[in-house]
């Protein structure tokens, strides 16, 4: 990876700079990353069993997803994508809702009041501007809220990305643009997504600070996001963060990466696993032992299994219910159509 990139924790678990959080917090974040991984693997397995619709795994991106959310507070917003389940969960989106969404059920998006996390964006690139809007609202309402938006390298090619960056710059909204550059947009490698050497350079064009970080380094992610969040919260406007990471798995469970990439590059990135890295750090700081690891793994597994059970216990919508959420009150036309469906099946 190129040198002009913030790194604090080396792949071997040794520090290059100062850890942004203490050891106890690191253990908590480690725990959260493990939950993310257990969830991710469970979803892939469930999809293979036909229990979920297409699923987009995020293995390898756990440091980005947990680390970027770590500095957030309750009033903050998260606006992310189909690949950001761990980030959304860590920001308070209930796991049962995430799973329900993946089974193919709109109630996945019906999350509790007070959780400021939008349902995942399935279209690429259209959602970053929403985090400009929510940030703008925080500014107008004076609630001190910051909006974090997460997106991929591919999303920076959509026109809406540029409109979002420009608006955030013009209105100095408290928005943190967190790009997980995982090397691929389905089959398109980063080098063909843009002729720019680095996405972070785009920040200059919109008059905002940008930073490129090692996205498999939890500490780099936490440090960069903490600074960006503090800047935004104190009225300093948006920041663009480009986190260099890698999509270890397929684009989705419907994808076959063998058609466009070799396993060698993926294996190399496997050796730079974000969870292993934090574990190595904890070991070196006498903050890890096998029994705790087992405890973490068991808890993660129980949590995921409980969410799966709860999601799957819910009966699917009846025919009539599919009409219920188009408007605050169904129109007469919709009521008529509901009757037609009941009449003719």
């Amino acid at each position: 990876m190129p040198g002009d990139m913030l790194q604090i924790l080396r792949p071997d678990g040794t520090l290059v700079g100062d850890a942004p959080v203490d050891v106890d917090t690191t253990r908590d974040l480690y725990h959260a990353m493990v939950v993310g991984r257990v969830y991710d693997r469970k979803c892939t397995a469930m999809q293979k069993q036909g229990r979920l619709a297409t699923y987009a795994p995020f293995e390898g991106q756990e440091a980005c997803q947990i680390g970027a959310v770590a500095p957030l507070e309750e009033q903050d917003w998260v606006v992310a994508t189909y690949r950001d389940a761990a980030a959304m969960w860590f920001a308070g989106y209930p796991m049962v809702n995430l799973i329900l969404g993946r089974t193919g059920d709109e109630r996945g998006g019906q999350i509790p009041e007070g959780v400021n996390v939008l349902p995942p964006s399935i279209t690429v690139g259209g959602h970053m501007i929403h985090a400009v809007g929510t940030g703008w609202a925080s500014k107008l309402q004076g609630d001190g809220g910051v909006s974090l938006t997460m997106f991929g390298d591919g999303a920076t090619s959509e026109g809406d990305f540029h409109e979002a960056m420009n608006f955030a710059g013009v209105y100095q909204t408290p928005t943190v643009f967190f790009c997980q550059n995982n090397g691929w947009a389905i089959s398109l490698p980063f080098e063909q997504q843009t002729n720019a050497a680095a996405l972070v350079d785009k920040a200059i064009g919109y008059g905002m600070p940008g930073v490129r970080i090692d996205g498999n380094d939890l500490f780099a992610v936490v440090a960069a996001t903490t600074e960006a969040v503090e800047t935004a919260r104190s009225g300093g406007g948006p920041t663009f963060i480009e986190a260099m990471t890698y999509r270890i798995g397929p684009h989705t469970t419907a994808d076959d990466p063998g058609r466009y990439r070799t396993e060698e590059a993926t294996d190399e990135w496997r050796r730079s696993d974000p969870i292993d890295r934090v574990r190595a750090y904890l070991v070196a700081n006498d903050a890890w032992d096998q029994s705790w690891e087992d405890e973490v793994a068991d808890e993660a597994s129980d949590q995921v299994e409980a969410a799966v059970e709860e999601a799957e216990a819910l009966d699917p919508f009846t025919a009539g219910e599919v009409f219920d959420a188009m408007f605050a009150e169904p129109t007469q036309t919709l009521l008529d159509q509901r009757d037609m469906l009941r009449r003719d099946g």
Partner: protein
Amino acid sequence: MNGQATTERTMAQALNAGLREALSDESVVILGEDVGRTGGVFRVTDGLQAEYGAERVVDTPVAESGIVGAAFGLAVAGMRPIAEIQFMGFSYPGYDQVVNHVSRIRNRSRHRFTAPLVIRIPYGGGIGAAEHHSESFEAIYTHVPGLKVVVPSRPIDAKGLLTAAVADPDPVIFLEPIRAYRSMKEEVPDDSYEVPIGVASIERPGDDVTLIGYGAMMREVREAAEVLASSGVGAEVIDLRTLVPLDVETVIASVQNTGRAVIVHEAPRTSGFGGEIAATIQERALYSLRAPVERVTGWDIVVPLRRAEKHYTPGVDRIVAAAMRTTEGH
């Protein structure tokens, strides 16, 4: 096509063969997301980049406005671009280019500039996909003056219509029903042939009621005709194949004979293309009608996700019920 070599193909394979054939014209360029190395998410462009190179079959950045806008520029300057949009739900970032430029340049320049391009768009539900992957918004294209809109329902038409679309001097929105990509196989001629744009196909003759459909819904329409036949109702089945320009003559002649019409589409009902057909029937064949024209359509709702999608897609039962209603008491 008698005596010609044929190969049994799915619609995806037939389209692949049609695209390969199109590429033998050097002005044809295929561009879209993941169309090259992986051959597209539905594998419709499978193997084409390997055969024709990355300059002719181009993997683009994730940018639909870019794809359509660049295709427009390529076309205006004499190339024959075939753009692929991954799913209809992702076509909207490119819609501004379609509405404001692609569809208008001929009129804006009084024929001096033209945009003979094809935009291939997989559409429709039935595969339990994620949000935005199931919709059927053909009417947002049929409503735009200056666009031709084609929707094949079967492999043989898919290849022939694609060839006609590439040869057409005007922009063609080429809608590919996702659930028909692999559900049906038929013998498809290996040599080049065109299925003309603007000509519907009478798939099955009948005297009692006209069933009018297109695209993915043709499977249900065909099945409904079978069911009706077993109850002694002769349904004439029309596959429109092209929505714009509409083959009015075929529709009207059939309805004048049967006196009854059922229009079927997966798209939402309000402002759906069925309204256009019904209006045309009442303008041209009102006095032949023996019953109100029936529409069997999707509802005015977002296509439900996988667990409840079945409540959306019109089924055979609904088509049969509508057809029976037209025959009641007449």
